[in-house]
């Protein structure tokens, strides 16, 4: 029989508008997969001809979830172009805000976005709270929010919720699905942490707001430094940071780490969690500046899963192409040469598998033509996976002294071999390890900042934009979803060209002209789905990447100017 088409749109519990289409054979094994972004906003067109100092504010609005990443990238791309080196205080303050973002983002992702792919809320109603309370000690000596009384209260609360028949955000999900593996007790523990994490995320947002003015969309960076000098010089404010940081770190250590360990233990024989990553090339950039010259996470490239060799990133080899994206120019181009003219070719009518397994009228994308607003970024012609898994694998392969012990500890406690990290589970675990690393080492940045403030109160470097000069520069770094780069050209004192190549573009992009799949699509092919009307396995795999689709959808230079003559500098501007 012919393959059946399955459409999943909207993919919920992500940032942005994502559609996944797959074709399954008679055994429900995915033969083909298509990843489609269904929204285009055009921010890189909008930023043109504006004051470069506004670029950070505008680009920040790419995403309210990675609400610091694009802000900093926009500001630092301009700093790079103008040759500005901000004072150490400013750099470390930016790291403190970045740490808040990572901790916030990863906690919210695991509990509120990805969590319901693992946790059967309805099953938790059958749990024995006393038994669950004991269970929590299996994965940590000091569990949070899992006392018998607390679990009983959570159970009662959810039970009433279900009995009233108004499940609100929990309505109509895939409860009871066969690939849910947790016991009722384990589900109850995670449900309790789901609620607790709602409180913790609020504190971690405050952590950023202390020096950011607000979160989402903080407002205390400026080209040349930071503006929150009063907060930095206020010891009570620093004390607040310390307190909230510790609160977040404690939750990461006592709940998040334990829960991922539990998931690794229970799900290690579930195919949708353990199937091997399909794109075995990983790329990351160094990030999280701890002091004058040290970063927590390393840069590099791993090819074909070979951890014995980490290659350096050569920025000249980055290209994007649009053979299957809704833009009219197809050829692969370096971000400095990018061309983009939107060219929407629409969808077509077709019967696909409906909510009850019946065939229903729907629209499908034209897989042979163009089918998404996301381009295909490639490194030296290769598809790359970016994200916490890349960052952790590369740091590990490089022997990073802060990361190696955390990875080894996870592998030892879970009883998994290193190869097990190259999977959906690995992606989820690596994100937790990244949060753990920040929780454990982030205060090095804080302490270094305090030390420096004793002798130096500078927060801003002066500069001037010469109207007659042309500038170019870029930011490259690793953000919660992976490697991010922003590229800017400035002419006549205004932005002449601007491009962002973002993590979710690397992961969610369509197949390229050579038939090379991006990570989302590649990781779905070969996956067996138990019940195609309830494609939980697909969602589980996609969520492991933490999709951020508004970020991924962007435009480049609409005029197609020749920008190729600019030489790209290799080393990311080093500290002071």
């Amino acid at each position: 029989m012919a393959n059946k088409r399955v459409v999943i749109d909207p993919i919920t519990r992500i940032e942005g508008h994502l559609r996944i289409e797959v074709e399954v054979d008679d055994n429900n094994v995915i033969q083909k997969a298509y990843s489609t972004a269904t929204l285009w906003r055009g921010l890189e067109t909008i930023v043109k001809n504006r004051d470069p100092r506004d670029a950070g504010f505008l680009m920040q609005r790419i995403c309210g979830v990675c609400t610091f990443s694009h802000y900093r990238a926009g500001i630092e791309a301009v700093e790079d172009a103008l040759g500005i080196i901000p004072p150490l205080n400013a750099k470390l303050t930016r790291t403190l805000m970045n740490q808040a973002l990572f901790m916030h983002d990863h906690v919210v992702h695991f509990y509120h976005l990805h969590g319901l792919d693992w946790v059967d809320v309805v099953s938790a109603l059958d749990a024995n709270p006393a038994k669950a309370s004991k269970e929590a000690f299996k994965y940590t000596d000091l569990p949070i929010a899992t006392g018998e009384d607390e679990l009983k209260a959570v159970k009662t609360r959810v039970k009433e919720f279900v009995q009233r028949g108004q499940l609100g955000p929990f309505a109509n999900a895939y409860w009871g699905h066969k690939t849910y593996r947790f016991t009722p007790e384990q589900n109850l523990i995670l449900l309790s942490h789901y609620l607790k994490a709602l409180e913790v995320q609020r504190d971690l947002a405050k952590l950023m707001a202390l020096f950011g003015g607000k979160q989402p969309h903080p407002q205390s960076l400026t080209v040349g430094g930071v503006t929150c000098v009063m907060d930095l010089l206020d010891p009570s404010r620093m004390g607040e940071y310390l307190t909230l940081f510790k609160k977040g770190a404690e939750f990461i250590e006592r709940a998040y780490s334990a829960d991922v360990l539990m998931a690794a233990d229970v799900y290690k024989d579930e195919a949708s969690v353990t199937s091997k990553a399909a794109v075995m090339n990983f790329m990351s950039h160094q990030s999280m500046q701890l002091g004058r010259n040290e970063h927590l996470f390393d840069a590099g490239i791993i090819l074909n899963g070979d951890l014995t060799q980490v290659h350096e990133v050569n920025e000249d080899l980055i290209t994007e192409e649009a053979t299957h994206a809704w833009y009219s120019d197809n050829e692969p181009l370096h971000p400095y040469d990018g061309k983009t003219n939107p060219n929407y070719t629409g969808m077509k009518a077709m019967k696909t598998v409906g909510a009850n397994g019946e065939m229903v009228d729907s629209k499908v994308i034209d897989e042979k033509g163009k089918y998404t607003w996301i381009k295909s970024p490639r490194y030296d012609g290769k598809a790359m996976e970016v994200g916490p898994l890349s960052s952790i694998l590369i740091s590990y392969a490089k022997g990073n002294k802060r990361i190696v012990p955390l990875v080894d500890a996870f592998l030892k406690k879970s009883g998994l071999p290193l190869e097990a990290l190259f999977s959906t589970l690995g992606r989820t675990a690596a994100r937790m390890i990244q949060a753990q690393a920040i929780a454990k080492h982030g205060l090095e940045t804080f302490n270094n900042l305090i030390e420096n403030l004793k002798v130096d109160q500078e927060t801003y470097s002066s500069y001037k934009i010469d109207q007659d000069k042309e500038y170019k520069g870029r930011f490259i770094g690793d953000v919660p979803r992976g490697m991010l780069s922003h590229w800017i050209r400035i002419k006549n004192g205004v932005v002449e060209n601007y491009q962002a190549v973002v993590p979710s573009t690397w992961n969610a992009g369509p197949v390229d002209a050579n038939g090379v799949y991006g990570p989302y699509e590649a990781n779905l092919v070969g996956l067996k789905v138990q019940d195609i009307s309830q494609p939980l396995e697909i969602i589980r795999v996609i969520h492991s990447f933490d999709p951020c689709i508004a970020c991924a959808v962007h435009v480049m230079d609409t005029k197609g100017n020749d920008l190729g003559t600019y030489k790209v500098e290799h080393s990311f501007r080093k500290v002071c």
Partner: protein
Amino acid sequence: MKDNNLYEKLSLRLLELEKLPGLKNNENIKSHLDKNGVSRRDFMKWAGAMTATLGLSANFTPLVAKAATLSDKLPIIWLHMAECTGCSESLLRTDAPTIDSLIFDYISLEYHETLMAAAGWQAEHNLEHAIETHKGKYILMVEGGIPSGNNSFYLTVGGHGNTGETIAQNASEHAAAIFAIGTCSAFGGVQAAHPNPTGAVALSKVTNKTVINVPGCPPSEKNIVGTLFHYILYGTLPALDAYNRPKWAYGLRVHDLCERRGRFDAGEFVEEFGDEGAKKGYCLYKVGCKGPYTFNNCGKNRFNSHTSWPIQAGHGCIGCSEPDFWDKMGPFEEPVANRLFNTPFNGLGADATADKIGVGLLTATGIGIAAHAMISKFKNPKSDEE
């Protein structure tokens, strides 16, 4: 309107709400609160804070508390259009003891793509089901601008490939009240900034029904939740300004509520970021603060449970709750008087005067105050009545 009349009116409104069939079999929320370990004291503390946020006097607190306990009767549909999810994130920051879980439990959040467990067809069915079941009774909250008309294909959602515009129109059609959450939904937002490559527009441009705008990029969690409770209390639309913003939240300028206002009046300005003035908390006008032209309560309520706000963090206001602020307020780090764009109110006078005072007559305190008092007259709110 006098306090007494208002009190009576609210009481009647609550009586009406009580008579509505409960979504949850008329279960009493107070009993849930008790069971869930939310103490009466914590709850009243929150109600008190919310009462103040709404600009009501303290004797209204019991009514606000009662309104909160009735809110489970109100289904909420939240749609994502062309947006960045920042407004949803802001909603999640809702504060006071356990209030996020309170909201989570007691407002029936029927559709919200960032939070809901269902996906794909099941998610689409949730939306259809909510509109059908709660026709004329649900509150619609929309986040994001809307690519419309010939450009509507820039956003599609769901297996049927419907455009965002169609979905928003359909949901608006049957809503009891419509709130445009955030500057994108209220005014088109960042994607509608020049040259607006996707033809994005405000929600109010694609529906004929009244839209209450709750702008901000994003609006504070207080303004989002406060707007909801305002509706629950009044049962009618709140008093709105010329841009359909609730006056309780957007009635005063950032400048009016600014902690650095004294510095402005005294002529003490930050001349450059990081200077001595910055360390002392001088006024940020000369490094581009748009507080004199921006109507919002940021300085009063702040963000993230009163943690901070941009001006406390040393950066000027960028005017994010005003229409077209991306085009009219930039460059954000230069005073309005120094830039080429049109003023937000087309040079109606008050802001131009503020510029002269800010840049020129730095210590002309008297004139400054007079000028700032003027601007609200130009705003010409639609109605002062409830």
